[in-house]
């Protein structure tokens, strides 16, 4: 009897974990598991210092070139951009638990409620998207990775505005699938895929990956596209968390 009781409990947990935002108790963003992962990460982070430094230096180079090549605004109206016009706030964090071999991968980061991280913030690295914040505790948060079969993220082609949904078929941590791109869109191998900015989670123009291959779906109306991620999901350390300041307003408006 005890066996069936406990087996049912674990089944309930399993089913909960397969539906988005439902798993209440069993997540690694709690004090105990977060603490263990944090101390383990304090040791293991030294082993990939070199590659992580390279990534950060690469990003610095890119940002510097952007900064020095920025067009000087000829607009005569002065806007104080610190008080207006700022719709996204960025936080930085470290991944303390990475996972990419399961079919529903969830990462853990070392920022939480105390750092004003909340559910449904976007997570990106210097190269591209990583996932969406799922559960938060005081000092830790879990991230629903793009490598999760339940994850759905809106993305589009860079050169046209045709958008579709990113999902993952659990086959390879290097590739995600973009579906629902209409047939009229001009799709070519090697084209860049970016976030669409249509959901209130990610801003527009964050890199996702490049098209590896594509085909029409069974109904021959939409493309199914294999996208090679810019990120190496197996080697993640420094990430940025994006808060959409206007999110509340947007969702309120949409609910009306």
């Amino acid at each position, binding site marked *: 009897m*005890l*066996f069936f009781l*406990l*087996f049912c*409990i*674990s*089944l*309930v*947990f*399993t*089913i*909960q*974990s*397969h539906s988005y935002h439902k*798993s209440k108790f*069993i*997540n*690694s963003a*709690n004090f*105990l*598991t977060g603490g*263990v*992962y944090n101390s*383990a990460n304090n040791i293991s982070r030294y082993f990939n210092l070199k590659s992580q430094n390279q990534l950060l230096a690469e990003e610095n180079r890119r940002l510097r070139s952007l900064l020095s090549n920025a067009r000087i605004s000829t607009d005569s109206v002065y806007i104080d951009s610190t008080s207006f016009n700022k719709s996204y706030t960025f936080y930085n964090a470290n991944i303390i*638990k990475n*996972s*990419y*071999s*399961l*079919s*529903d991968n*969830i990462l*853990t980061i070392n920022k939480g409620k105390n750092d004003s991280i909340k559910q449904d913030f976007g997570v990106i690295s210097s190269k591209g998207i990583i996932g969406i914040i799922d559960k938060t505790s005081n000092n830790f948060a*879990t991230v629903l990775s793009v490598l999760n079969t339940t994850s759905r993220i809106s993305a589009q082609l860079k050169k046209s505005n045709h958008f579709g949904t990113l999902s993952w078929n*659990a086959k*390879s*941590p290097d590739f995600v699938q973009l579906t629902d791109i209409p047939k009229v869109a001009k799709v070519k191998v090697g084209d860049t895929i970016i976030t669409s900015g249509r959901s209130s989670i990610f801003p527009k123009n964050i890199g996702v990956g490049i098209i590896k291959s594509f085909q029409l779906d069974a109904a021959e109306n939409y493309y199914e596209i294999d996208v090679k991620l810019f990120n190496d999901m*197996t080697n993640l350390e420094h990430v940025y968390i994006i808060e959409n300041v206007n999110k509340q307003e947007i969702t309120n408006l949409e609910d009306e």
Partner: protein
Amino acid sequence: MNNLFSIYTVHFFALVLVQVLIFNHVNFLGYINPYPYILFIALFPVKNNRLVLIFISFLLGLSIDLFLDTGGIHAGASVCIAYARPVILKFAFGTIYEHQTVKFNAVDFGSKLMYFTILTAIHHLILFSLEVFNMSKIILILQKTLFSSIFTILISLSITIVFSRKTR
């Protein structure tokens, strides 16, 4: 008895930590991870109460789940093999088990391998079925089960060989 209790408590925590901090980062060929924490269930003393074992297995699986954000898949699979263990023991060891005198350090290698193989295969099959949770991907489940089982059995046997006390 008290001594035995403390030994198994240490085993419990050591296996959980080793599993989540080391064996889950192996990712051989991208997705193959061994799960040698089931050694705890395999090597639990035969004479002890069955309900105790089932309950401890549940806790063991649940703590692994807690670390890996996997819902209840490890708890479910562990409880299953804890429940099925007497049958597997009987099958693998035959008459020794009937006399309730199985000492895991003293049994011959063939039946030990058989015991581990069956236990691991059942555990992994349930584990990956629950993880993928999609019968249309049965090939993926079987593939993961096969490769991870081989890996787990190898690691489990190495651990038992390295840590076995020379009782003979």
